[in-house]
């Protein structure tokens, strides 16, 4: 005799679908109201009823998103600031409700939108693990089981019973991350939070993310690091202005995104005002030193065809042109360039040579070119310093006033410069 259990039938029927899709997003729209002057007290509420003036603007952060996030895959969300990535993530995490549409998820979601957000400063690290764990939907037993792993992962054994208010910010974040990843999440949501902590901890975080990925945890990742998306993610979606631009294998999506960014940048610098520093801008605004008989007025970046470009491409031939204006004839002038990253790392500092290699400059305007067969700089922004000197004597020195943007057509290797070399494989017997 068999007893018919409707519940059993349901789980069997639901399983094949639940097995391949972790999060289903259907026609999701999200409206935020931007209040010009937010009514937060009762008096204003009553006074405005009479006026009936519209006090808010509607702002659609998401304009209809359909997306399936497959189970067991690592999924990246990319897009520029304000494209709706974080809003979508908050909707998926259940923090906000969609204005229209539905989001369904199969599995427990653990969200890392801000590490250690739920910590109570007066409570010990251990108590906070219980609190945070229960917020993530764990039972006390499950938390107890994971406790030792969390403490070991965070590396805070000595401090786990002291109030978290005495923790350094790094310790705070370490504990938060340790909790989020060690509580056996089924779906993990990560928003730009990995770029914290010291080098060693970061490496451990990434190792752990890869480990979770191997174990089949669904990971949804928002980041501006395209290299990370291409590396870690199986699939990616590109959001722009609240709509989906592309979904697919992460490398393809990243390439499309990069191509669009390049196009946009090229377009904006053609019709917009030239954003390279001009003479007026550099005057007074930047630290400018030197006796001033000769001054650099402009720096241009010329592409292969000899035309100025808003940005240069890695590995391509290019010329960096310094225009100058001299008020006197100078018999021995050396031009120099300095390339610095935004974080202050000096990448290179070529100069035109001293002694017999120095130039003689006539009064008036002119330019010097620095030509490269292959630009070794990797994609990024570099600050350019120009120097015009006569041995020890500075005529003109403009510190980091010009910006050089470097782009690549695809995601390239990590690092600041591209080393060109030849690889070869040899075996011991030959």
């Amino acid at each position, binding site marked *: 005799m068999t007893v018919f259990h409707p519940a059993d039938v349901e789980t069997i029927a639901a399983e094949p679908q639940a097995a391949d899709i972790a999060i289903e997003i259907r026609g999701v729209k999200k409206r935020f109201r931007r209040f010009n002057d937010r009514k937060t007290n*009762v008096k204003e509420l009553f006074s405005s009823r009479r006026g009936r003036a519209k006090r808010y603007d509607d702002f659609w952060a998401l304009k209809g998103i359909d997306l399936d996030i497959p189970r067991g895959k690592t999924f990246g969300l990319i897009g520029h600031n304000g494209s709706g990535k974080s809003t979508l993530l908050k909707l998926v995490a259940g*923090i*906000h409700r969609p204005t229209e549409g539905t989001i369904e998820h199969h599995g427990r979601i653990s969200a890392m939108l801000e590490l250690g957000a739920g910590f109570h400063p007066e409570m010990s690290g251990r108590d906070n693990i219980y*609190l945070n764990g229960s*917020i*993530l939907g764990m*039972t006390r037993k499950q938390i107890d089981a994971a406790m030792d792993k969390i403490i070991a992962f965070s590396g805070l054994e000595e401090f786990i019973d002291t109030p978290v208010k005495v923790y350094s910010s790094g310790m705070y974040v370490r504990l938060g991350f340790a909790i989020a990843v060690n509580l056996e999440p089924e779906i993990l949501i990560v928003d730009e939070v990995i770029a914290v902590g010291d080098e060693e901890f970061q490496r451990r975080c990434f190792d752990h993310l890869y480990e979770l990925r191997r174990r089949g945890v669904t990971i949804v990742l928002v980041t501006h690091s395209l290299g990370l998306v291409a590396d870690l993610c199986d699939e990616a979606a590109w959001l722009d202005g609240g709509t989906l631009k592309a979904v697919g294998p992460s490398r393809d999506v990243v390439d499309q995104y990069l191509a669009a960014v390049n196009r946009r940048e090229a377009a904006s610098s053609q019709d917009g005002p030239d954003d390279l520093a001009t003479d007026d801008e550099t005057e007074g605004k930047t630290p400018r030193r030197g006796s001033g008989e000769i001054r650099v007025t402009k720096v241009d970046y010329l592409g292969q065809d000899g035309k100025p470009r808003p940005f240069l491409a890695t590995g391509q031939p290019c010329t960096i042109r310094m225009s100058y204006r001299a008020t006197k004839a100078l018999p021995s002038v050396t031009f120099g360039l300095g390339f610095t990253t935004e974080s202050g790392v000096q990448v290179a500092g070529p100069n035109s040579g001293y002694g017999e290699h120095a130039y003689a400059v006539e009064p008036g305007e002119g330019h010097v070119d620095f030509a490269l067969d292959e630009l070794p700089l990797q994609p990024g922004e570099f600050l350019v310093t120009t120097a015009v000197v006569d041995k020890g004597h500075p005529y003109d020195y403009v510190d980091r006033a010009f910006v050089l943007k470097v782009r690549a057509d695809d995601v390239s290797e990590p690092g600041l410069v591209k080393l060109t070399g030849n690889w070869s494989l040899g075996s011991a017997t030959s």
Partner: protein
Amino acid sequence: MTQSVRAVWQYRGLIGNFANREIKGKYKGSLLGSAWSLINPLATLAIYSLVFGFIIKFPTPVAGNGELTSFTVYLFTALVVWNFFQSVATSGMGALVMAGPLLRKIYFPPFAPVIGSAGAVLNQTAIEFGLLFVVYLVVGNISWTFLLVPILMILLAAFSLGIGLFLAVMNARFRDVSYIVSVLLSLLFYMSPIIYPISLVTDLYDKHGWLRLYEYNPVTAFIEAFKSALWHLEFPGWGRLAYLTVVSVLVLIGGWTFFQRKSADVSEEL
């Protein structure tokens, strides 16, 4: 309805942790620590006893055992009830606002901090009730009617929580709610027979008939029910118990429904 109960049960761990966080965080960093949860009510009791028992000299009815007439104990009985009601009704407002930064980062049901903070009040109430029972034991004013106290407490908790849920979600939208509430509560305090026996009001019924409304104030009804059971050692009466049950259930369901409807988007408002 069963769904609501299941949701609360599912998140019992979280509610417990919020309660825990509230209790542990409350007196952290103070020198006397949890001793304050005893000092605070005793200080209030001493002040009221001095003003209303010694200077103004409100009459004190004789207790159930026939000899106890201490105004301080009489006052304490009502004050414990009032403190519980007031703390549960107001703690949710602060708890929800405090949980705001958290609600914007992680999903959890907004009722968890509100119910958690209400649960934390039980800690304080247990201490006060414990003290009260010890006093009654010492003076020998005990009876079977004490067994009604848990039932009355459940009703009072339901009533207070219903109001607490309503106020918490209102306060999330309009922060002036907490100021209005503090004014209304002090009015309610004097409108209830806490520092004076109810006979002062009931004696005026012949002259001012409309004063009969006074007894329909649920807080009055609760305090009178507790006073009957604890001080007079009398059964509060079926009528009053029925009234309290109906009011408590309605207030809890109303508060809960309102809260669940309004709190879905609370993370955008906090």
